[in-house]
């Protein structure tokens, strides 16, 4: 068993091809686990590692992923596969060229991305999106942990703008072949029509593959928060501020601003709140900033959903808040740590 491991190791180092050694290293670490020992104090370490950290996010995504497969059939898996292959290519290429380890964060990006796409999305668009997202959303900044914007969302944003027709006009309700252009949010936008809450909870509506099955998202999301992999602050304040703002807004501008429960259940709000704003890399450092982040994101979501030409308020607000996160942190740190008194 360990001789196989050695063989693997020898092969990896012998092959002149860098990309292979990066892949071998990744596979070796994946199967055999960590072998490094603590070098000095502390002599012991927490058993949580990044592989498990990211796996938890994937586990949390499972309910809604399974639901998507049930709703729209095996093509969903094909979309996920394309996302992993195309994005993985970029990840591996960069790891090899820049001589860095392949980082596991991509496994989450590669799954989240397809889940926020319409079920009818052409496969080539999936590839363009994930490649763009991983490349411009992550690798140019130096890879996992160093990016500013949520890579999956950068990819989604790019293809939303680049291919408006494919991305916003061909929706499909579960178990049907009929193409419709009406998601619950656009129904409200055009005619203040409220989709029944039961349908929203169980996912019997048109929408992105991973965003419709609210129950599964909530279950997975709470799991993520309870494990501490996702920090609870942003989701709680994000959903909370959407709720409160739409409660107030709905009173004054009912033809534009939908009622609170609808806002929370329709579209990708819950998905974004549990799986996207929890991305530790692209959220702010400070607990105080996280709260501000959540509240602002809620505000922007409502503004964009209600007043702009788009219904994708969640996507835009999260990217916008990713951009604002460093600034928020800057001010919070300034407030938290008083400037030194000159002596």
């Amino acid at each position, binding site marked *: 068993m360990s001789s196989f491991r050695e063989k693997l190791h020898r092969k990896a180092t012998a092959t002149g091809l860098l990309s292979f050694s990066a892949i071998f290293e990744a596979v070796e670490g994946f199967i055999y686990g960590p072998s490094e020992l603590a070098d000095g104090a502390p002599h012991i370490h927490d058993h949580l590692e990044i592989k498990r950290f990211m796996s938890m996010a994937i586990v949390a995504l499972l309910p809604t992923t399974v639901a998507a497969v049930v709703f729209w059939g095996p093509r969903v898996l094909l979309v996920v596969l394309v996302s992993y292959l195309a994005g993985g290519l970029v990840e591996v290429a960069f790891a090899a060229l*820049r001589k860095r380890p392949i980082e596991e964060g991509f496994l989450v990006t590669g799954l989240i991305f397809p889940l926020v796409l319409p079920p009818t999305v052409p496969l080539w668009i999936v590839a363009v999106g994930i490649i763009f997202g991983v490349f*411009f*959303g992550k690798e*140019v*900044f*130096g*890879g996992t*942990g*160093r990016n*500013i*914007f949520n890579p999956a969302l*950068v990819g989604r*944003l*790019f293809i939303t*703008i680049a291919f408006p027709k494919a991305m916003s006009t061909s929706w499909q309700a579960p178990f049907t072949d009929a193409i419709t252009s009406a998601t619950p949010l656009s129904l409200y936008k055009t005619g203040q029509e409220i989709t029944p809450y039961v349908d929203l909870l169980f996912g019997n509506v048109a929408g992105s593959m991973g965003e419709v099955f609210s129950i599964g998202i909530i279950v997975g999301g709470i799991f993520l928060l309870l494990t501490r992999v996702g920090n609870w602050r942003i989701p709680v304040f994000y959903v909370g501020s959407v709720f409160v703002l739409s409660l107030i807004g709905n009173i004054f501008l009912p033809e534009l601003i939908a009622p609170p429960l609808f806002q929370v259940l329709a579209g990708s709000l819950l998905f974004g709140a549990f799986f996207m704003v929890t991305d530790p890399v692209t959220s702010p450092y400070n607990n105080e900033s996280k709260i501000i982040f959540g509240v602002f994101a809620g505000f*922007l979501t409502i*503004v*964009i959903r209600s*007043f*702009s*030409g*788009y219904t*994708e*308020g969640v*996507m*835009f*607000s999260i*990217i*916008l808040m990713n*951009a*604002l*996160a*460093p*600034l928020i*942190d*800057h001010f919070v740190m300034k407030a938290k740590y008083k400037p030194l008194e000159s002596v």
Partner: protein
Amino acid sequence: MLASLLMVFIAAILTHNIALTYLLGMCPFISLSKSLRTASGMGVAVVFVVTLTAVINWPIYNLILVPTGTELIYYIVFIIVIAATVQLVEMLMERFFPVLQVAFGIFLPLITVNCMVLAVSLFLVIRDYSYLTSIVFAFGSAVGWIVAIVIVAAINEKLKLIGDIPAGMKGPGIIFVITGTLALAFLGFTGVANI
């Protein structure tokens, strides 16, 4: 009236952002967005100059050039007004606000050759704005520019801590990527306000 002024102001910041939609004022944007201090310094200077030149250029164009039929040379007039305004602001600041002068005086000369100042004045003429709208639009555009550069500067400061940017991408390259992503994100406001 007030509502439409507010719309122009919001549009100038969000949907018709001078940096993110019209790609103007990019040279100082690239070189000064590396730190928050320079970004905000230049930002304040831009607000001053852009608003002031609009205040001056609108009457010159509409009350002097148009009646005398000399619209032809408005480029020349505008650019001279801008240069003079920058000089004036510099002098006034030195005289009355030496503290401000220290803080962002060095940014002022850079503004003379900043295309966004001229562009704002040109937009006023092309769009045939009223005087009040012009001022609001100019001020909003400048604020929109500050908003964009300050966001990018804060991101750059964070990247100094966490980034591991490929060599060829450092500096302007990564700023373009950040600004591009920001521009994509600002498209989300499409339709919120119209110019």
